[in-house]
């Protein structure tokens, strides 16, 4: 802490100015980084949603195609269509699997909104108040230090 030692202000605050400055800087950095974290989290949710939507779209197209091939096979006389039937079943299962994941992601993102909103409020309101309080204390201590230096 630069060996500055403790200082008492006129309002009775006893603290090390450099220690408080260091903590204030850490708080400001924390707020900026956590805002970025919150924004990136939103991006991650949207990227996963987009990815799952693309996969669902792909498997829907595969299902439609497999169904059309199966229907065409069945329209013919006496052909073995079991391979086409299996393809339809598999595509349907994958599509259903992906849709279940889409639902789980939507639910989890919805549940996350509560703590995310509270934390965003903390970043926007509570933290700036704490930073202002620290700045006021630092200014108070620096003024006291100048008075002490002038008296000695």
């Amino acid at each position, binding site marked *: 802490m630069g060996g500055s030692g403790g200082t008492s202000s006129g309002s009775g605050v006893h603290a090390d100015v450099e220690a408080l400055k260091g903590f204030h800087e850490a708080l400001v950095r924390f707020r900026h980084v956590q805002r970025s974290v919150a924004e990136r989290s939103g991006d*991650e949710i949207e990227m996963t949603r987009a990815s799952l939507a693309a996969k669902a779209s792909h498997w829907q197209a595969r299902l439609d195609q497999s169904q059309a091939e199966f229907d065409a096979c069945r329209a013919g006389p006496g052909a073995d269509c079991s391979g086409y039937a299996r393809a339809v079943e598999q595509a349907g299962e994958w599509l259903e699997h992906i849709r279940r994941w889409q639902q789980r992601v939507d639910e989890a993102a919805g549940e996350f909104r509560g703590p995310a909103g509270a934390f965003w409020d903390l970043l926007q309101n509570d933290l700036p108040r704490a930073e202002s309080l620290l700045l006021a204390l630092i200014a108070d201590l620096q003024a006291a230090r100048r008075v002490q230096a002038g008296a000695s």
Partner: protein
Amino acid sequence: MHTRPDRDGEEQLRLLGAAWEEAAQHWRDEVARQFDSGHWTPLVQQSRTYLDALRALMDLLETAERDTEF
């Protein structure tokens, strides 16, 4: 390098905790106690709640991606 946002958030909370420990060693008066109970403790608790929820969500998103790869 791409890192998960929850890990960056955890690291920042760790760094802030270290800065608070350092400041608290040199700041021991009534104002410090009020700051601790009125600002610091709620900040840590809310950050913890948020980062735990974020970690669980990021785990789920990773699993969703992995589990839907054909």
